[in-house]
């Protein structure tokens, strides 16, 4: 910091206002509101509550108690099923839910990064599903139809997944660059085309159908040499896929924030005509961006194709291509944001069966997920509900940060 710049005194009040008006606060409040919406649905569908609500004025406590019970048992089960199971007999059993969350979060994070990359460039990649399936097709081909030495087989299979997905993305980018076709429409159409093609491949013994599948759409299991190795021993399902997702997060951060490619991607996303005037080839950037976007989705495809011991089916994409959109939105398309959002929605998936056991449909988590992102999409709504200050433009927070971080640092 240069000497000439006068240090402003710290104004805590305005710094606080800036924090309150910032996106982190808004995201947290959206998450809380989302859970509240979920609670609402749990309550109104609870039999006990419905029986007691008739006597609400006679005995308000009974219906409130019923409401409290159902919400706490629902979200309690979510915690137990997704984070820590205190009632398990062994330590392994107690932390198993957490490992499940990590396992399920892996592909959500990877695909979420992909969709987020698209958002940063101003592109709506709704085609996560089709790209994921394409990646699964390629990876399954390598994993079930090729024989390669260990490690190499796995590496080739993962690369196949990434390439298989990236090609679809790049094709969409090519169509957009060449003909101006809106990527929202082309990606949606390709989803259906690719899923139909996958079904076709899985129905033919000479193609991808497994030897023992009979008339069903199912492949052979991935060869042992091509399977993602377990991280915590065979008793846990958590495998290398999660580590790859973390690597992807770091790579994404570097790509978007530190590299010149990311600089150009962001420039095109904010203002394509200025980027074009600055000599950036916008059409090539669209192809590159959608290719990269789908490449991250391809990592999720590798996870789906190379994790299971049972072979892939038409539903192996597990809706990740679509969930990834909500992950990217909740995470604000930033690397740390997508990581956290992926973990949260991974936890939802992990906790689903525990909630089901409590007699509550796990679909309530889908409602929570949708509600959170709906609130995220409308900052003015959240501000209105919580009476937050309007967006602040002071430099207080930056000043505060530099004050905190420069303390003790070299002068």
């Amino acid at each position, binding site marked *: 910091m240069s000497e000439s710049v006068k240090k402003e005194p710290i104004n805590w009040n305005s710094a606080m206002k800036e924090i309150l008006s910032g996106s982190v606060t808004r995201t947290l409040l959206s998450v809380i509101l989302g859970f509240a919406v979920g609670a609402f*649905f749990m309550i109104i*569908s609870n039999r006990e509550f419905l029986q007691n609500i008739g006597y609400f004025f006679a005995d308000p406590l009974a219906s409130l108690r019923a409401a409290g019970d159902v919400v706490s048992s629902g979200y309690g089960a979510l915690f137990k099923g997704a984070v820590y199971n205190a009632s398990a007999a062994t330590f392994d059993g107690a932390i198993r839910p957490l490992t499940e969350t990590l396992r399920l979060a892996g592909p959500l994070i990877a695909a979420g990064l992909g969709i987020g990359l698209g958002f940063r460039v101003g592109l709506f990649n709704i085609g996560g599903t089709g790209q994921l399936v394409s990646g699964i097709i390629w990876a399954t081909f390598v994993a079930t139809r090729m024989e390669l030495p260990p490690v190499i087989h796995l590496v080739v299979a993962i690369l196949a997944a990434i390439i298989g997905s990236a090609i679809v993305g790049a094709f969409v980018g090519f169509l957009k660059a060449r003909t101006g076709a809106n990527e929202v429409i082309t990606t949606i*159409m390709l989803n259906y085309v690719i899923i139909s093609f996958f079904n076709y491949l899985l129905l033919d013994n000479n193609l991808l159908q497994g030897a023992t599948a009979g008339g069903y759409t199912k492949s052979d299991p991935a060869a042992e040499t091509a399977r993602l190795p377990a991280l915590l021993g065979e008793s846990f399902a958590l495998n290398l896929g999660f580590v790859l997702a973390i690597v992807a997060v770091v790579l994404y951060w570097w790509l978007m924030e530190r590299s010149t490619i990311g600089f150009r991607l962001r420039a095109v996303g904010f203002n394509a005509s200025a980027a074009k005037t600055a000599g950036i080839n916008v059409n090539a950037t669209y192809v590159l961006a959608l290719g990269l976007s789908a490449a991250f989705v391809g990592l999720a495809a590798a996870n789906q194709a190379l994790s299971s011991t049972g072979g892939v089916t038409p539903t192996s994409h597990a809706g990740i291509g679509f969930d990834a959109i909500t992950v990217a939105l909740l995470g604000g398309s930033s690397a740390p944001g997508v990581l956290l959002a992926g973990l949260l929605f991974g936890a939802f998936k992990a906790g689903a069966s525990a909630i089901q056991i409590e007699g509550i449909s796990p*679909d309530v988590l889908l409602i929570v997920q*949708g509600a959170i992102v709906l609130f995220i999409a409308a900052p003015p709504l959240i501000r209105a509900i919580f009476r937050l200050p309007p967006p602040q433009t002071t430099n207080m927070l930056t000043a505060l940060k530099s004050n905190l971080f420069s303390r003790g640092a070299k002068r």
Partner: protein
Amino acid sequence: MSAETKKEVRESWKTPAVMGVLSATVLVFFGILGKPEAVSFELTGVREVVQLPNIEVGSGLLGTFAGIALVVITALVAWQVSQNKRASIWFSMLFGAIALVALLGWLAAGNVVPVAFILGSALVLAVPIMLGAMGGIMSERVGVVNIAIEGQLLTGAFMAAVISTITGNQLLGIVSAMITAALFSAVLAVFAVRFLAQQIIVGVVLNVLAIGITNFLYQQWVTEDESATNSPGTLPIISIPVLGDIPIIGPVLFQNRITVFLAIGIVIVLWFILFKTKLGLRARAVGENPLAADTVGINVGRTRFWWVTLGGLLAGLGGAALTIGSSGSFGREMSGGLGFIALAVVILGRWHPGYATAAALLFGFSIILRIWAGQVSPGIPTNFITMVPYLVTLIAVVGFVGRSRPPAADGIPYVKG
């Protein structure tokens, strides 16, 4: 600033090129290399008043003639382009229809094609798509991109099934389906107009919510006792006197459920309102240039809100057509992507109710063709037939309608100074 407006750029050759490839495919594979067996077109069913003879023709012969007809159309379109005229959309439609007949003839070699059944089913299957697309058109014409049609169809389907069963009144079911979907659509409208939210994002999220809510309520409330909550039955089939007895046209058009008649009526009324009335002129102005509309005293926000919300009514009716208009009960995620097809239909139909209906019929036709082909000739890879309409849309988006213009302000929030 010259007054003459002669265009300097040539019309694109994309359309005739794509048509050329397709006609050659039909001519070679369905015609010259086609199957020798005869295909029989059954024009009238057994129970019909007026009976017509079946038409028999060799599959390969049909393919050849169809191929030649397609080549002729391609030549006409190529001529139009060479004259620097826009390729007529009617040629494209005729082209599509003939290509479909050729496909049908090839698939059904050695079999009987129940013409009335296929056309009638295509129409019934197209109705939810059509109605969803009409909702989409209402929304996009005022400048709000509507990806949430899927969710509206789904909520409509759910409400129609459940409310009809509980109240025992199907009309009430239809009304509640429409109102619920409209409320759903109103959320999109409010987020788009009031909160200036990204419309595509809100649409995606509303779909997630619709799936979540219907799945949740279905499992919590409906599955325990389906007979008390999810057995609405289907609407009665109404046969219009005299008209219903006309061969082919009668059973296809005039012996249907009320949902089909309503859908046809809605298309006509919507077309009329959009292009012939004050309301339509204002709506289109809002979708093209909201600031200009504002400066002549049109309330942009209100117009957008009501068109989007009322569009939801139509999509809700489309949802009702899925349950009480066809299958007779609700199932998890039963809209199965029809809302996205409706979105494609909006674009394929150039934001025009009439053309969109034609596009919806194409999708309806391909669905029934897949089902029927799977039954008559099991060797046919039905997965490829499934792909056809999506591929057509894809080709259309990059080739045929690549230059057709959406409403200029579609998807752009209007911020007042």
